[in-house]
């Protein structure tokens, strides 16, 4: 009997709350919220422009509760804006395209296909087909990684299916990392330790693939002809496209203290990578040699962001670190500024014109002024009943 009781207390259910990221476009902040909404906030007036609520997800109960349970649709990705449309993938397996003009003009919503429209493309409503990774936009298509192990290409205008790939990860099925495009090829990393190359046009597998003993934890990033990505074996990999062997693995000697969960970024031949052990590394892209590092003390879950000559990093405890890349940074680098927002951070964030836009785990958006080194303003994403 005690086993049953403990089963109820300590994690019989494993809920997905989501950690949606933020993006800024034409003075509007777009973000997902943990109560299943996509929200647009005017960054000048700090007012809500519009919000779109997704239908809650109903699922058979797990654990000892009876009947069905209803929960807000979780969002893990960052909204993407292209022209007047906001695109986002949901944990309920849908891709939404929201017409932001329609919202601001109070037109009937949603409408389908023509006129002021939106669409939502139900790849599948089942949890097993959840979308966790960011969507990828090209000129005329959207690429979606799904938890059923496939990548989908959807028509950007109407959401029609262009193609679906074969199942890339038979073992785990979960494709929780975003694909990346170079030329006419789509590169996808998997939890079973592969990097696959797919034709952008038809989605078929190309000849080259890379295989590693451990699975890849982060989405791949491409610079020139090299793919950079983090692995569950606690190394950051650099893989030259076409090669069977990694160009380098970082750290060179002993593995890092945890996974490189967040995607690294590459700028002017330097890779900046945050690790769940709390360290930020600057690595020479060609050689894998360490340039400098910084210990934040708390896990780095979000990818770093560049703004002019500044590298901006947030750690899970909600501290924002600003590094001046034009300065001579030594082996153990010191940040130019350290700003605390007072809330945990797991989401992707963005930076523009001296301001950093971060969604905290408390479901508030914090706007950090880098020059002043303070939180300029903040807004709650939770609708008060």
């Amino acid at each position: 009997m005690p086993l049953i009781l403990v089963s109820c207390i300590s994690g019989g259910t494993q809920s997905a709350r989501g950690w949606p990221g933020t993006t800024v476009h034409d003075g509007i902040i777009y973000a997902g919220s943990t109560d299943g909404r996509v929200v647009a906030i005017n960054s000048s007036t700090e007012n809500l422009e519009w919000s779109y609520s997704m239908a809650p997800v109903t699922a058979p109960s797990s654990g000892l509760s009876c009947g069905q349970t209803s929960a807000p649709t979780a969002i893990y990705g960052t909204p993407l804006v292209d022209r007047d449309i906001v695109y986002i993938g949901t944990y309920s397996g849908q891709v939404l395209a929201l017409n932001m003009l329609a919202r601001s003009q109070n037109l009937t919503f949603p409408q389908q296909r023509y006129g002021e429209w939106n669409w939502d493309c139900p790849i599948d409503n089942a949890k097993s087909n959840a979308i966790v990774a960011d969507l990828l936009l090209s000129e005329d298509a959207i690429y979606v990684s799904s938890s059923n192990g496939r990548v989908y290409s959807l028509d950007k205008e109407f959401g029609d299916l262009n193609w679906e790939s074969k199942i890339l990860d038979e073992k785990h099925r979960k494709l929780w990392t975003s694909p990346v495009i170079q030329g006419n090829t789509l590169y996808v990393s998997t939890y079973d330790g592969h990097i696959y190359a797919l034709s952008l046009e038809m989605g078929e597998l190309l000849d080259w693939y890379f295989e590693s003993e451990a699975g890849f934890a982060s989405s791949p990033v491409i610079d020139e002809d090299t793919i950079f990505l983090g692995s569950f074996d606690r190394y950051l990999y650099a893989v030259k496209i076409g090669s069977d062997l990694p160009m380098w693995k970082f750290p060179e000697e002993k593995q890092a203290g945890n996974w490189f969960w967040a995607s690294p970024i590459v700028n002017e031949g330097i890779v900046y990578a945050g690790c769940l052990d709390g360290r930020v590394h600057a690595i020479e892209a060609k050689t894998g040699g360490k340039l400098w590092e910084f210990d934040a003390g708390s896990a780095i879950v979000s990818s770093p962001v560049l703004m002019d000559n500044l590298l901006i990093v947030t750690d899970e405890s909600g501290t924002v670190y600003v590094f001046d890349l034009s300065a001579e940074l030594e082996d153990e680098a010191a940040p130019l500024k350290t700003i605390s927002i007072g809330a945990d951070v797991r989401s992707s964030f963005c930076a523009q014109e001296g301001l950093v836009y971060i969604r905290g785990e408390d479901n508030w958006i914090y706007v950090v002024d880098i020059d002043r080194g303070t939180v300029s303003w903040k807004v709650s994403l939770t609708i008060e009943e």
Partner: protein
Amino acid sequence: MIEVWHLIIGNPVLNVLIALSHLLSGEFGLAIIALTIIVRLISWPLTKRQLNSTKALQDMQPKIQELQKKYDKNKQKLQQEMMKLYKEAGVNPLGCLWPMLVQFPIWIALYQSIMRALATTPENLLDLAHRLYSWDIVNQAIPLNSHFLWLDLGQPDPYLILAIIVGGTMWVQQKMTQAPAVDPRQASTSRMMLLMMPLMFGFLTLMFPSGLALYWAVSNIIGIITQYFVTGGWGYLKLGSPFSSTPVKGK
């Protein structure tokens, strides 16, 4: 307090479970079975004590039944006489409970580890990162393959198969140790308990992740096997009381 629990018991069990999964060709279902066996082996001295206590109580059943008949109308006297009997035989009627209680932390850790290791949501996977050791064998096994036979170990069994196995094995295990009562009311309660627990666990199997139900099933099967060999047979599973043909010796 919770962190101490994870540091001492939770995380070691979790990492061993994941390492076992890697050693067993990435089959997490096999890892659950293997760890259940290992935990059973480690706790064998306690299990043996528990089974010996159970067997001693079984052996005393003819005398207990005789006392129950003799003092049917006088419950207080019956209790006194039974306590006297236990004392003379050197048996503590609660002796079979203590070893079981000592094992609970291990069972709880095993349950939590199964749930954590499967990391069915992104939050769980991120949480798992902070609980893993830097062993290569662990890192190469992550994330785990949650599919085993027809089961998704992170989800309840969609069929009744596992529920029937869990319920059935639990009934057998209970039936092996449950002595028939002479008192009709007690007998009715015993019969109900014999059915209720297996039914309840069978029902829970339909609601909890099948990884946990797999652990229950394996644990029950090991329990039946050890009980068979330690107590020297099927106990009360055989029709009627094993003591019914034994002449009852009065005091």
